[in-house]
């Protein structure tokens, strides 16, 4: 017996390349903290370091994408099947890293203002991205939970980052308590699914349900319901949306866009992956529930957004409506995954940009952003107002913006899946939503200028320009992005 044989144990194949993007983000976060302690670099340098780390992570994601497409030298299920490398994860990573990059850009001015804690903030943003990215490539309920918690805990801290302010504590505590509760619900759901199927891995659950006729599926269904409930909290779908307006209002404006967007991408990635790859057999059981959640979210979000006087609360409620719109694409089982991803990619970029405007007008660490501050913005900051108007029209889903293509896609899927009533509710809710976006545009374009300060630093101009390009370019020529999203299918 040779030495080599003697030491051979049945260890899982560790393919570090498979999680290289997440590793880069995690290690990068640690490095940023260490460098800060050791060398006290300028805040601009720190922000650049954060950006470089995201870019490197994105490059690894591209590399993995290329390897996956060519089918060479990549194990699709590394880490003993905890991780899955597929088109779904590829696209999820692109969206997540785009949001992270734009989020860092948008937070540029806040990094300058918060002084010595800049490194912490950047590290937390990187960690949150790593966490939600893990969630998106997870093939195992425990891995999903792990990613969810890494991401969520980073966001809890970010929500209360400006401790000097009264409602920052409120926001952070509220987010933490309710978020932890949602995570607990998710874990309980995972446990029940395990109890019902004997599996934590998504593939295992799927194979079990595929091969066995479950006579009494009560436990499994309850588990699935709890999993869905936990994740709908993260994506701010009704009726689990109540925290969003308070948290968005209390959290520092510089990072709210990032927080809101990245949690939505991660949450939807987890939700769609669980529903589509583990529970396609039960689609007739979960689709009506998801349809109800979608319809309630669209109506509640659009209607409540109208009465808001604070732009952040308005965007929070409109986010509830958007969560509902996105969920309509999930109703067709796996058919609508591409459209869901297209919608998520477009909407989250717009969301980051919208909050970049909030940061520019209300100040990056401010907590109030009354609509009155935006009166006549077109006269004070024409660039900001014009680009924000385009983004609001895109969120409203006006044709020739990518928001319309996105809505059109998910509605078509839902209609084809036989959920005509959800589509009718959806198109009517989007008319209501027009009203609230128009209200903001009216304030910016048709009111007399307020004397509130508004600054548009280059970093925010970049965010706005990129978001406008995404909104208009993919509104007129959505082909390339739809094509990419079309391959974002779970393994």
């Amino acid at each position, binding site marked *: 017996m040779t030495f080599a044989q003697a030491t051979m144990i049945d260890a899982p194949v560790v393919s570090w390349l498979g999680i290289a993007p997440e590793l880069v983000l995690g290690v990068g976060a640690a490095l940023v903290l260490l460098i800060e302690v050791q060398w006290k670099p300028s805040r601009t340098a720190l922000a650049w370091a954060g950006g470089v780390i995201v870019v490197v992570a994105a490059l690894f994601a591209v590399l993995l994408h290329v390897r996956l497409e060519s089918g060479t030298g990549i194990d699709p299920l590394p880490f003993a099947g905890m991780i899955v490398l597929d088109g779904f994860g590829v696209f999820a990573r692109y969206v997540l890293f785009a949001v992270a990059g734009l989020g860092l850009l948008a937070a540029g001015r806040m990094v300058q203002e918060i002084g010595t804690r800049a490194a912490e903030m950047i590290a937390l943003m990187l960690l949150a991205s790593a966490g939600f990215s893990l969630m998106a490539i997870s093939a195992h309920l425990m891995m999903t939970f792990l990613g969810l918690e890494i991401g969520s805990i980073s966001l809890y801290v970010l929500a209360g980052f400006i401790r000097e302010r009264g409602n920052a504590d409120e926001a952070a505590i509220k987010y933490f308590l309710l978020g932890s509760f949602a995570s607990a619900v998710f874990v309980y759901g995972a446990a029940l699914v395990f109890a019902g199927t004997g599996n934590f891995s998504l593939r295992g659950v799927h194979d079990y349900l595929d091969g066995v006729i479950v006579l009494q599926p009560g436990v499994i269904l309850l588990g699935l319901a709890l999993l869905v409930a936990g994740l709908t909290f993260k994506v701010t779908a009704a009726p689990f949306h109540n925290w969003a307006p308070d948290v968005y209002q209390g959290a520092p404006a510089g990072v709210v866009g990032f927080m809101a967007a990245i949690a939505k991408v991660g949450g939807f990635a987890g939700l769609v992956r669980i529903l589509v790859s583990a529970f396609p057999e039960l689609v007739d059981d979960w689709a009506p529930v998801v349809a109800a959640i979608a319809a309630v979210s669209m109506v509640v979000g659009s209607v409540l957004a109208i009465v808001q006087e604070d732009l952040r609360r308005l965007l929070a409620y409109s986010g509830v409506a958007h969560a509902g719109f996105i969920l309509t694409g999930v109703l067709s089982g796996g058919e609508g995954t591409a459209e869901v991803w297209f919608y998520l990619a477009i909407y989250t970029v717009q969301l980051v940009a919208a909050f970049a405007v909030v940061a520019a007008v209300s100040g990056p660490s401010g907590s109030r952003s009354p609509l009155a501050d935006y009166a006549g913005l077109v006269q004070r900051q024409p660039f900001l107002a014009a680009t924000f108007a385009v983004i609001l*029209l895109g969120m409203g889903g*006006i*044709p*020739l913006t990518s928001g*319309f293509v996105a809505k*059109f*896609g998910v*509605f*078509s899927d839902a*209609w*084809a899946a036989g959920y*005509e009533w959800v*589509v*009718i509710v959806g*198109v*009517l809710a*989007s*008319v209501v939503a*027009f*009203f609230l976006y*128009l209200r903001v545009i*009216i304030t910016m*374009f*048709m009111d007399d200028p307020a004397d509130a300060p508004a600054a548009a630093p280059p970093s925010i101009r970049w965010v706005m320009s990129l978001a406008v390009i995404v909104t208009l370019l993919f509104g007129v020529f*959505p*082909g390339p992005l*739809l094509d990419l999203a*079309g391959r974002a299918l779970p393994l």
Partner: protein
Amino acid sequence: MLTWLILLPVLGALVVLLVPRRRSEVILPLGTALSVLPLALAGYVFAVFEPVADYQFVERAVWWEPWGISWYLGLDGISMPLVVLTTILVPISLAASASITERRKEFVVYTLILEAATLGVFMALDLFFFFVFFEAVLVPMYFIIGIWGSERRRYAAIKFFLYTAFGSALLLAAIIAMAVLHASQFGSPSFALEDLMNLDFGPTASVLLFCALALAFAIKVPVFPLHTWLPDAHVEAPTAGSVLLAGVMLKLGTYGLMRFNLSLFPQVAVDWVPVLAVLAVIGIIYGAVVAIVQPDLKKLIAYTSVSHLGFIVLGTFALTSGGLQGAVIQNVNHGITTGGLFLLVGMIYDRRHTKQIAEFGGLQKVMPLYAGFFLFMTFASIGLPGLNGFVGEFLVLVGSFTSLPVFAALAAVGVVLAAIYLLWAYERVFTGVPEKEENLALSDLDAREVGVLLPLAVLALVLGLYPKVLLDKIEPSTEALLDHVEASTDYEVPAPGRVADVFLTGGGR
């Protein structure tokens, strides 16, 4: 070529955007000059347009294969007149907007984008892009009303937007439903009109889809009782906005009814003729009666639109040669005459800053040229023989008399009422002795204003004396539409209803 017709205004808008802020005085002349380019192209299209039923200048390119969407443009005799009308009215509106002094650059940009979107609606043969442009029209018009309108502009802009957006929401659902149905019947989704015409909708679905489309278009027209956004939007909009709103945007509705409701759901259309005819006649009479009592000149003209558009709807659903041809040509006539009247009201408003009829009196002594143009446009609108309004209304009335005699008789009352509301308004504004001191100092039209009005007056005269120039190109398409309706239903056009040429020689000349 048609793609360029859409791109030219967009490129023009980009050029205008590049003009530096301090050179704002060149923006309006530049924008007007740029908007002549699409007019020139449309003029060429009109000149080489063959009087045949097929779609012409067709362009088709796949846009997104899996959803079955293609960039599919084409013109026939129903849409071509509207395209030409749009390209005529935009330069005129821009040239008439000298009174807009604030944020001129934005104004010109919105107007040119509005033109591009409107042209897109009339040319799109793919329902996806039809919807895209149909909805995209709302945004620039919303800004034009909301920024440059008068006191209650915000209310009017929002009301306008939400009314029409509500209609188009159902339109969107209907379009998705048709594409999904196409996928289930033919294996792949499609949004092309000609493909959707092959669908077997079934009795329930076709009624529901017909209603969804009809509601969207009826709000746009507007058909009574969905018209309440119109007076607000017209009255609050700046002059150019009112001209384009009345001149082309209302036609999006009548065009949609004719193009989509009739060709996709002929059986339902035939069944529902009484309902639509009743609403059309109510609109004709109600609009006219309400117009009579308006104290505000602009609101008066706004309500005349409700009445005139009722004629177009009646003509469409009369389902006879004369009715359809009359409806198409009345689309153009209404754009010319109502556009001209709104321009005239804008000119007096610029001078006196009021539109109240009671504020005026005896103006024809002070402003003879203005009074002359006003009277001319009034006659054209009333339908004086020899002017364009007569041709359209006559064709509609004769056409509907063969299939819907009672409705035609009632609609004829609208012609009489039109004479009352417009001539009475003319009498109060222009005749008598000028009493108010402010009115005595009013200056008559200047060269620019005459230049704006003259093309419309010439068009009104040409179309009134020799409508054949347009009707020849319209007729094959309307006949083909009637053939389609007859072929797909058991409806038969009443005997004299197909002898189009009799009306032509009888009317108009």
